[in-house]
């Protein structure tokens, strides 16, 4: 019973596999994937309160994992809905696109439950490899094979980062003699300040920093966003980042409560990511590249919570990244709909959006202002919780750098609003929206608003779920 969401996803993937065997079954595959995603939400909601330890202690179902599974399921549905027909993927491989997407989500869903580093790495690969395949599935245009270049970049960086992570894990294994995270916490505590442990942890973080696009593992981000189809970019920008933060919580809490070397490392990376992302984003003309660089900056913000190294900080980071999922999807739904035939969207393409499609303009404005951190949207509450967690631990300089970065970022976010709201449309056509897009827009706006105005229930749930991260296995009842 506790394994239901994973079972639903894997059964769904199997069904999609059989659909793929036939010819031109894109439409059926799309419907099947949507049904699977809705069923996953139902299964996750059903299993929300479950607790169990499965597979000889390698897999744990608890509040922490179940909340995040629900987030992934919601993200999955939203991504499918905003993609619509996914017209930028060739018709004959579109069914496979849905298959790989479902597999990637099932990898993410498993990732948050893994408490053994071997299963964790396997789940991480399961979530990553299908994404590597989604990138080159985009249609070719004008002899440029930029999607191939992006895919190569993505997979090369990804595999290298995974290798480094495995190398780091081998250090941790060597130090503690166990692959089980809860046991590792106990065994690592006496030696956590040793250079070997710090090196091991730092190398382990690399794999996750890659997924989160933290400086200096960010190089792939803008190129992959640009080369991948709009829908694929929206998945890479949202879902996989939530997964990375969730796993990072497990590994950073290995070094808790205070480890100056790790804190220093995280601080430096956060500062570098924020400045790099925001400064380069200032000169971007392509909206997806802009979001890519702003994503690097947001990864830096998310790291601020880890610098605090306490439950409040982790809760803030998780809350922030969940909010980020909604904010960035709100921007991507606009990209997907504004783009003509799935082409990339430049800033000029947004001109006069408020006349061409008021609903899209509102969605974009809400998403962009949320990313900029203006209340009452979730971006503000998220930054606020992050900053208070870091300031409570005395990281004043980091907090001031973060707010200075917020001010820098305003400029390019306003640039997007300027195009969409203040400029005239010229001869650009009116954008007609189908009902799924309208529903997605409203859902995302409501999500960004509700998470920002009434965050109490989310923050409380995340905080209480954090209590069970890396607890000894015995404290969770066996099924």
């Amino acid at each position, binding site marked *: 019973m506790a394994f239901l969401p994973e079972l639903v996803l894997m059964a769904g993937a199997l069904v999609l596999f059989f659909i793929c065997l036939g010819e031109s079954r894109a439409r059926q595959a799309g419907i099947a994937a949507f049904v699977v995603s809705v069923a996953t939400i139902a299964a996750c909601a059903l299993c929300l309160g479950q607790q169990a330890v499965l597979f000889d202690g390698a897999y744990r179902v608890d509040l922490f994992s179940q909340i995040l599974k629900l987030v992934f399921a919601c993200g999955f549905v939203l991504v499918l809905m905003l993609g619509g027909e996914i017209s930028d993927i060739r018709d004959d491989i579109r069914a496979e696109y849905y298959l790989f997407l479902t597999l990637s989500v099932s990898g993410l869903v498993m990732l948050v439950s893994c408490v053994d580093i071997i299963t964790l790495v396997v789940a991480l690969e399961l979530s990553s490899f299908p994404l590597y395949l989604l990138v080159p599935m985009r249609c070719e245009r004008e002899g440029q094979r930029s999607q191939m270049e992006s895919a190569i970049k993505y997979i090369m960086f990804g595999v290298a980062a995974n290798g480094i992570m495995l190398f780091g894990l081998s250090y941790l294994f060597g130090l503690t003699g166990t692959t089980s995270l809860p046991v590792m916490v106990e065994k690592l505590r006496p030696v956590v300040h040793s250079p070997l442990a710090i090196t091991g942890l730092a190398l382990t973080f690399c794999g996750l920093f890659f997924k989160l696009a933290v400086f200096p593992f960010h190089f792939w981000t803008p190129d992959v966003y640009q080369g991948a189809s709009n829908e694929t970019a929206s998945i890479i920008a949202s879902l996989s980042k939530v997964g990375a933060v969730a796993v990072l919580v497990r590994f950073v809490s290995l070094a808790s409560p205070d480890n100056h070397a790790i804190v220093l490392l995280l601080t430096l990376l956060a500062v570098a990511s924020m400045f790099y992302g925001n400064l380069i984003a200032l000169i971007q003309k392509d909206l997806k590249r802009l979001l890519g660089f702003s994503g690097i900056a947001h990864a830096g913000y998310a790291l601020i919570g880890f610098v605090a190294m306490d439950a409040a900080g982790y809760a803030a980071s998780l809350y922030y990244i969940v909010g980020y999922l909604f904010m960035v999807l709100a921007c991507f739904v606009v990209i997907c709909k504004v783009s003509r035939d799935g082409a990339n969207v430049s800033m000029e393409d947004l001109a006069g959006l*408020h006349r061409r499609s008021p609903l899209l303009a509102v969605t974009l404005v809400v998403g962009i202002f949320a990313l900029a951190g203006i209340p009452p949207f979730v971006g503000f509450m998220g930054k606020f919780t992050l900053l208070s967690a870091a*300031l*409570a631990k005395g990281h004043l300089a980091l*907090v001031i750098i973060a707010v*200075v970065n917020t001010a820098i970022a305003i400029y390019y976010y306003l640039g997007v*609003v300027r195009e969409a709201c203040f400029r005239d449309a010229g001869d650009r056509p009116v954008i007609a929206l189908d009902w799924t897009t309208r529903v997605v827009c409203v859902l995302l706006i409501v999500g960004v608003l509700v998470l920002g105005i009434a*965050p109490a229930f989310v923050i409380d749930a995340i905080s209480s779920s954090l209590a069970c991260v890396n607890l000894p296995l015995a404290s969770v009842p066996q099924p």
Partner: protein
Amino acid sequence: MTFPSHHPDFPILSVLIFSPLVAAAIAVFIRSEGLLRWWTLASTIVIALVSLPLWCWFDATTAKFQFVEHAAWIPSLKISYTLGIDGISLLLVLMTTLIMPLCVLCSWRYITKRVKEFMICLLVMETAMVGVFCALDFILFFVFWEAMLIPMALLIGVWGGPRKIYAAIKFFIYTMAGSILLLVAIIALYLKVGSFDIRAMMGHPYAAEFQCWVFLAFFISFAIKVPMFPFHTWLPAAHVEAPTAGSVLLASILLKMGTYGFLRFSLPITPHATHVFTPYILWLSVIAIIYGGLTALAQSDLKKLVAYSSVSHMGFATFGIFALNVNGIEGATMVMINHGVTTGALFIAVGIIYERLHTRDLGETAGMGKFMPVFAGFLGIFCLSSLAFPGTNSFIGEFLVLAGGFKVSKLMAICTVPGVVIAAAYMLRMLQKVAYGHVNNPDHSQLADLNLREIVTLAPLLVFVFWIGLHPQPFIHVMHASVQHLLEQANGPLANAAVALR
């Protein structure tokens, strides 16, 4: 006028804050533009009427916050939904609710495209503005304070003049950049106090150095909003490009938030730092008064002229606040109200000119008063009010500020006096040109005088000009206890110890 007495459980402040939002939500579904205008006008008038009982129910004998509402909002972060007003915020809340219907009226013909979005922006602005003046939780305050930027930037950027994009972005970045450090200061205060309640933050014995840093963070944020010299450069751009209603909101209410911030936060929370920085701020205020006046004297664009006169008037407000005595602060609050009334009226008047001539140039508008006698009458009175003519409202405010200023430093107070003279010069120059002009004026003979709607827009402000000018006692009385209490906080034992140290 008698109202039934206030029922303690009736959440009148919440009603005032959120009914514009509800009205905006309903406006989304109204299709006809005419109906939209009437709906917005009706809802703002109803909200103004609902706010009137505040005046009657308010107990002016105590400095306590009244109509307090308290509810948990985000318990895990100790953020609560706390509202309440004292004598100072009461006046500003009432000014906000009473100005709003006039903003709708002055946009009646001026706004012809995207009427629905415009009205929704106005109503959302009202929610945020009333919220800023009522919030007693610092995070709640900050949420309203920042949320206001979005509709205001849209008002300038969508319905503004030729350089609207530049003005909107400059306004947004200036104000946003100013307030980011405010957030850091809020969190730092919270970590000392353990609560975001503004009342709990007042009177807490913070270390002197800590106070200075917090004060500076507050100062940048509020000084940009006021705007004080040298942070004023966003104001002329925003005013010139904004539509009439946007200019009125900016001048009458948004600028007051800066001075309100000084009164509500800087003085009571960081009294020691206030005393440390007072001399510098007083001199900055003197510079603003003179500089704003001289710059206004050189303008040929009517809106720019009024905008720079705002810089000068708000200089009086900050001068009065940091005089740190009863006369000074009461005078400053009166200047805030008067500036809201008079400058709001002047912007509406400029809007009326612009609707007829599609220019705001002083040369091209010359002599139109001959063909618009009623308008010239209104304009004349508002100009006299703006230059603080005795018998009008501004005289009371500036007189009190100067009285307070002389008690602090004769030198500084004398330095502000030329500001009053310059005000007479630029206002009379404008009045003379617009009303009479030269011998060779442009032909304005086809101009129609004010219609009923425009008279109804300007008349309430005219009433206030003379009401405050001739009988200011009710207004001063209502805030007296609050000002006394504020001064006890700002000059209390904590601050005295600091002064002794200095």
